[in-house]
């Protein structure tokens, strides 16, 4: 097995890519995808530590995490549908009424 730090660093890189995407991308759907990226990075972390210590708890936790990610994505897309209905596009940076 590889040293666990490699897996952790990979997870960190994926997480940072997801963070960058959430901060920068204009389209709502792309933001949802980046959120999924971040969640998956966390899952990689969990699996890496679970395998390194030969425990099964981490795997169970990952199952729950995936299921929750799915539920959250469903809600998120429903919200995007509402936004699309009112503005006819899903550009998140147009929603800025609470500004100075």
């Amino acid at each position: 097995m590889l040293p666990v730090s490699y897996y952790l660093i990979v997870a960190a890189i994926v997480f940072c890519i997801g963070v960058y995407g959430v901060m920068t991308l204009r389209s709502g759907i792309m933001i949802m995808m980046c959120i999924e990226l971040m969640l998956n990075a966390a899952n990689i972390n969990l699996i890496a530590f679970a395998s390194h210590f030969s425990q099964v708890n981490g795997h169970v936790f990952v199952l729950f995490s995936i299921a929750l990610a799915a539920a959250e994505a469903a809600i998120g897309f429903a919200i995007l549908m509402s936004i699309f209905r009112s503005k006819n596009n899903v550009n998140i940076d147009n929603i800025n009424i609470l500004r100075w």
Partner: protein
Amino acid sequence: MEQLPSKGWNIINLVTALLLMAVLVFAIVSVVGLGPLVPSTLPESVPIDYTVWEDGSMDASGIEHVGGLLFTKYVIPFEVLALILLAALLGSLYMAKKEDE
């Protein structure tokens, strides 16, 4: 569609993400170390827990243990998760539905 100062923010976002990565890598390296690790807590002589199926194949994924834990120790979160999925389903259905005239 109004133009926001997206160029400035893009740079800030990039820098932020890179800084975050630097911090995370630094944290990982300072705690766990890089390269070959200190020996794992399990000595080599401890066998990996292989599961043997009826047809003789061996499985090191530990999925049998996952199932066992899922329905004994973590059964309540499992049930709650089911409810969460139900709620999410209903909620998204309601929000995404076409509005009646």
